[in-house]
C-alpha cells in the first residue's frame, strides 16, 4: 500500500529562524503566492522523505493565535480549516517562555505538534541547559533540536514528524484556568456542542476559551448557526477584558511552572525583565517616561546655551564685517539682513537640534524608547490607537515627514489615518528654535520647563484629536498589538553620534536650501518697495501683515508675527528668521532676544500663545505633501490643514484671553 502524502505547517514567533528551517526542509522547491483575499505572503514547499511526499506550508510568524492581526487570522484559519497532519512549532531556545505561549495555544487546538527547538547552540552558549527528554515528557510533544542556519537537526525533525503523523487522533492539552473560568468554559461548551456542525468543525473547549477571550473572529464562526444567539448572549454577560488578561496570565503561569522542570538553568527572568519590572510598572512607567522626556528637553535647552552664544558671536562678527566692507548698500543688506540674518538665526539653534537628537538616539539605542512605546500603549489604546502608533509619534519629535511615512507599519487603516492626521501635532525639531528663542526671552530659568510644557501640549492635542477622530471620522475599536522589547544595552558613543548626524544633517541641509530661499524672499518683501525702512510696516511684508493683523489681534499677535507665521508654512524654522527681520534685530540672536523683550507688543503671555500657535498650526509644506501621498486623499489633506489652523487659533485664543482675565497679560 503506497504511503500517504503529508501536509505540514510551520508555525512560530517572528524571528525564530522559521525561514531557515523551511529552507532546510524544502531546499529550492518553493512556491510563493498570497493567502486568499489578503496580502500576506504564502510560501509552500515540497520534499520527498523516506518515500513520502511532504507539502510544507510556511505560516506567517505570530506570537499567538488570538487574531489581532491578519497574520494571526491566516495562521489560525489554515490550521483549523486545512487540518495539516502535523504542525511544526519552531521555538527559539534562547527565549522559551515567550515562545511556549504560542505552543500552549497550538496544544489547545488539539493538533499534532512537533517542536523544533531552534538556535539551541545560542541557548547553550548563554549557559542554558535544556533537557529535551524531560521537555518531551512535560509537554507531551516530540522535540527535535535544530540549528536552522546550519541545517543541523532537520533529519531528526522530519523523523519525528513522520512518527507523529502516524499516531492516532490527538487529544487537546487543557490548561486549567481556575474554577470560575472553567465553569464558564463548561457552560459555553455545552451551548456550542448542541449544534453538530459547530462541534464537528471546532474543538468545543478551544472555541469556548476563544469566545471568553473576546475573540471576534471566533464569534464570526458562529454566524448563522442555531447557537449564535445563545452563545453571543452568554459571552456578552461576561467581563471579557478581565477574562482575556486572566487567561493569558494562566498560560504564562503554566509555562513558568513547567519550564524549570526541563531547564533548571533557564532564567525566565533576565536582567532586562527585572529592570522592566520598574520601567514598565503600571504606576511608575508613565511618570518615569515623562521624567526622561523632561530631562531630555531640559538638557537640550541648558547645555546648548553656551554653544549658541559662540555661534551667535560668530554671526555678529560676520555681519559687522559685511556691513563695513560690501558695497552697494542693498547688497550689504541682502547678505547682512537677508542671508546672515535669516539663515544665521536658524543655524544658531543647531546645538539644540543636535543635542535633542543625540539624547533621543541614546534613549533609542539603550532600548528605553521601546519601553516608552510599551507604557504608552495603554494610553494609546484608550484613545482608539495602538502602541504601534506611538513609534511614528516619537519619530515626529525629529521630523514629521519620515514619521508619517513610518505609519505604513500600522495594519489597521483607520488607526493609520488617525495617526497620520495627529502626527503634525507632535513637535518636530524645526519648531524648537521658536520655543528656544521665546522661552529664553520671556521665561528665564523656567525656559526648559516651558518648552517641555509646549511639547506636552502637542501630545495632549494629538491625543484628544485621536479620540475625536476615532469617535467620528474613523469609528471602530483598535487592534491590540504585541511588541518585542529588545534587551537593554549600553549605547555606544559612535552609534549615537552617527544617528545624531544622520538626523541633524537634514536640518543643516534645510538651512542651506529652503531656509536660505525663504530668507531671501523675506528680505525682498521686507525691503520693497525701494526706499522703505527694512522690515517696516510700509514694506510689502508689512502690508501683508496689516491685512492679517485684525484676524490675529484676539491672540495678541501683531502684524510682524502674522508675517512670520505665513512664512513658517514653508518651514517652521523660518518663523525665527522672519521675526528677526521684522523686529529689526540685526544679525545676532542675543539682540533679537533683547529686541523682543523691549518690544511693547511682545510679553510672556502672547509669547506662550505664539509658541502654542507655532506648535499646532498648519504643518510645513513637506509634511502636507507627505500627508497627501500617504492618505492618497486631497480631502483629508485639506482637512488636516484646516483642522490644525482651527485648533491652533482656538488654543492660542484661549491662552491669551484666559491669561488676560487672570491678569497675566
Amino acid at each position, binding site marked *: 500500500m503506497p504511503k500517504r502524502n503529508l501536509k505540514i505547517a510551520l508555525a512560530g514567533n517572528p524571528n525564530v529562524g522559521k525561514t531557515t528551517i523551511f529552507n532546510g526542509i524544502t531546499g529550492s522547491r518553493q512556491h510563493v503566492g498570497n493567502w486568499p483575499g489578503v496580502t500576506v505572503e504564502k510560501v509552500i514547499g515540497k520534499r520527498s522523505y523516506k518515500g513520502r511526499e511532504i507539502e510544507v506550508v510556511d505560516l506567517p510568524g505570530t506570537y499567538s493565535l488570538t487574531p489581532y492581526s491578519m497574520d494571526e487570522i491566516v495562521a489560525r484559519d489554515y490550521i483549523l480549516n486545512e487540518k495539516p497532519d502535523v504542525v511544526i512549532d519552531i521555538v527559539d531556545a534562547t527565549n522559551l517562555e515567550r515562545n511556549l505561549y504560542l505552543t500552549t495555544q497550538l496544544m489547545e487546538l488539539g493538533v499534532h505538534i512537533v517542536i523544533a527547538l531552534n538556535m539551541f547552540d545560542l541557548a547553550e552558549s548563554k549557559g542554558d541547559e535544556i533537557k529535551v527528554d524531560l521537555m518531551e515528557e512535560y509537554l507531551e510533544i516530540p522535540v527535535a533540536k535544530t540549528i536552522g542556519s546550519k541545517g543541523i537537526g532537520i533529519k531528526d525533525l522530519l523523523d519525528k514528524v513522520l512518527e507523529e503523523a502516524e499516531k492516532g487522533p490527538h487529544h487537546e492539552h487543557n490548561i486549567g484556568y481556575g474554577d470560575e473560568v472553567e465553569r464558564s468554559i463548561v457552560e459555553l461548551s455545552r451551548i456550542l456542542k448542541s449544534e453538530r456542525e459547530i462541534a464537528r468543525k471546532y474543538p468545543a473547549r478551544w472555541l469556548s476559551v476563544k469566545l471568553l477571550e473576546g475573540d471576534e473572529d471566533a464569534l464570526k464562526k458562529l454566524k448563522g448557526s442555531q447557537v449564535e444567539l445563545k452563545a453571543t448572549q452568554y459571552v456578552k454577560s461576561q467581563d471579557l477584558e478581565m477574562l482575556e488578561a486572566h487567561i493569558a496570565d494562566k498560560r504564562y503561569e503554566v509555562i513558568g511552572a513547567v519550564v524549570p522542570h526541563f531547564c533548571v538553568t533557564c532564567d525566565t527572568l533576565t536582567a532586562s525583565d*527585572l*529592570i522592566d519590572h520598574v520601567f514598565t510598572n503600571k504606576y*511608575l512607567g508613565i511618570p*518615569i517616561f515623562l521624567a526622561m522626556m523632561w530631562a531630555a528637553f531640559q538638557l537640550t535647552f*541648558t*547645555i546648548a546655551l553656551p554653544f549658541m552664544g559662540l555661534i551667535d558671536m560668530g554671526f555678529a562678527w560676520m555681519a559687522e564685517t559685511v556691513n563695513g566692507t560690501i558695497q552697494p548698500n542693498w547688497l550689504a543688506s541682502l547678505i547682512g539682513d537677508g542671508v546672515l540674518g535669516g539663515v544665521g538665526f536658524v543655524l544658531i539653534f543647531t546645538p539644540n537640534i543636535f543635542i535633542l537628537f543625540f539624547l533621543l538616539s541614546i534613549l533609542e539605542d539603550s532600548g528605553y524608547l521601546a519601553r516608552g512605546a510599551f507604557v504608552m500603549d495603554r494610553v494609546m489604546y484608550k484613545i482608539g490607537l495602538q502602541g504601534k502608533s506611538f513609534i511614528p509619534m516619537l519619530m515626529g519629535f525629529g521630523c514629521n515627514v519620515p514619521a508619517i511615512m513610518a505609519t505604513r507599519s500600522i495594519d489597521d487603516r483607520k488607526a493609520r489615518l488617525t495617526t497620520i492626521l495627529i502626527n503634525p501635532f507632535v513637535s518636530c525639531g524645526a519648531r524648537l528654535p521658536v520655543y528656544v528663542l521665546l522661552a529664553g526671552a520671556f521665561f528665564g530659568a523656567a525656559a526648559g*520647563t516651558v518648552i517641555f510644557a509646549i511639547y506636552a501640549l502637542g501630545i495632549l492635542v494629538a491625543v484628544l484629536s485621536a479620540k475625536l477622530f476615532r469617535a467620528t471620522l474613523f469609528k471602530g475599536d483598535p487592534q491590540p498589538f504585541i511588541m518585542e522589547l529588545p534587551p537593554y544595552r549600553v549605547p555606544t558613543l559612535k552609534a549615537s553620534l552617527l544617528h545624531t548626524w544622520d538626523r541633524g544633517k537634514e536640518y543643516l541641509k534645510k538651512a542651506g536650501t529652503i531656509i536660505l530661499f525663504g530668507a531671501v524672499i523675506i528680505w525682498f518683501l521686507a525691503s520693497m518697495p525701494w526706499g522703505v525702512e527694512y522690515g517696516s510696516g510700509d514694506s510689502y511684508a508689512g502690508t501683508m501683515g496689516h491685512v492679517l493683523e485684525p484676524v490675529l489681534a484676539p491672540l495678541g499677535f501683531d502684524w510682524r508675527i502674522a508675517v512670520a507665521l505665513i512664512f513658517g508654512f514653508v518651514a517652521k524654522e523660518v518663523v525665527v528668521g522672519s521675526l528677526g527681520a521684522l523686529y529689526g534685530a540685526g544679525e545676532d540672536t542675543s539682540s533679537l532676544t533683547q529686541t523682543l523683550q523691549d518690544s511693547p507688543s511682545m510679553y510672556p503671555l502672547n509669547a506662550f500663545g505664539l509658541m502654542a500657535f507655532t506648535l499646532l498650526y498648519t504643518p510645513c509644506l513637506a509634511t502636507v505633501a507627505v500627508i497627501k501621498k500617504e492618505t492618497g486623499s486631497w480631502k483629508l489633506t485639506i482637512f488636516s490643514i484646516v483642522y490644525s489652523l482651527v485648533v491652533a487659533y482656538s488654543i492660542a485664543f484661549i491662552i491669551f484671553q484666559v491669561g488676560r482675565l487672570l491678569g497675566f497679560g
Partner: protein
Amino acid sequence: MGSGDMMEDHRKLRLNFCFFTGLVYLGFGILLLLRALGLGLPSMGTINIESDPAGGLLLILIAAIFLSGVQDIKAGLREGVAHMYVGIVLSLFFAVIYALAMATGAMEAWLAGEEASYTIGPVIYLGILPLAGLVKWRTGFSLKARVS
C-alpha cells in the same frame, strides 16, 4: 557567621537603604513643592530649597521607586533589587543633569563676562546617598543573584 546570616544582613541593609533613601527623597520633594507653592519656612534657604516644582516631582518619583521596592526586598524577591538599582541609576542621572545645567549656566555667564552664580540644590546633593549605594553594591548588581 554562616552564608545564610550574611545574606540576611545584605537583605536588611538593602531594605534599610531603600526605605531610608526613599523617605529622604520624599521629604525633600515635598519641601521643594511647598516652596514652589510659596509655602515653607525661610530657613529652607540654608539647605538650598528653592522654588523648583519639576525638581520636587522628580524627587517624589525617585522616592516612589525606592519605596515601592521595599516590600519586594522584604519578601526576598529580586524585583526589589531592580527597584533599588533603577532608583540609584535615575537619582544619579538626574543629579548629573542638574549639575550639567549648573555648569553650562556658569560657562554662559563666563562667556558673557558676568559673574557666575549657582546653587547646589537637593537634586544634586542628595545624590550622595545613591552614590554611596552604588559604591557599596557596585559589584553586587548582578540581578541574576537571588536575594534570599
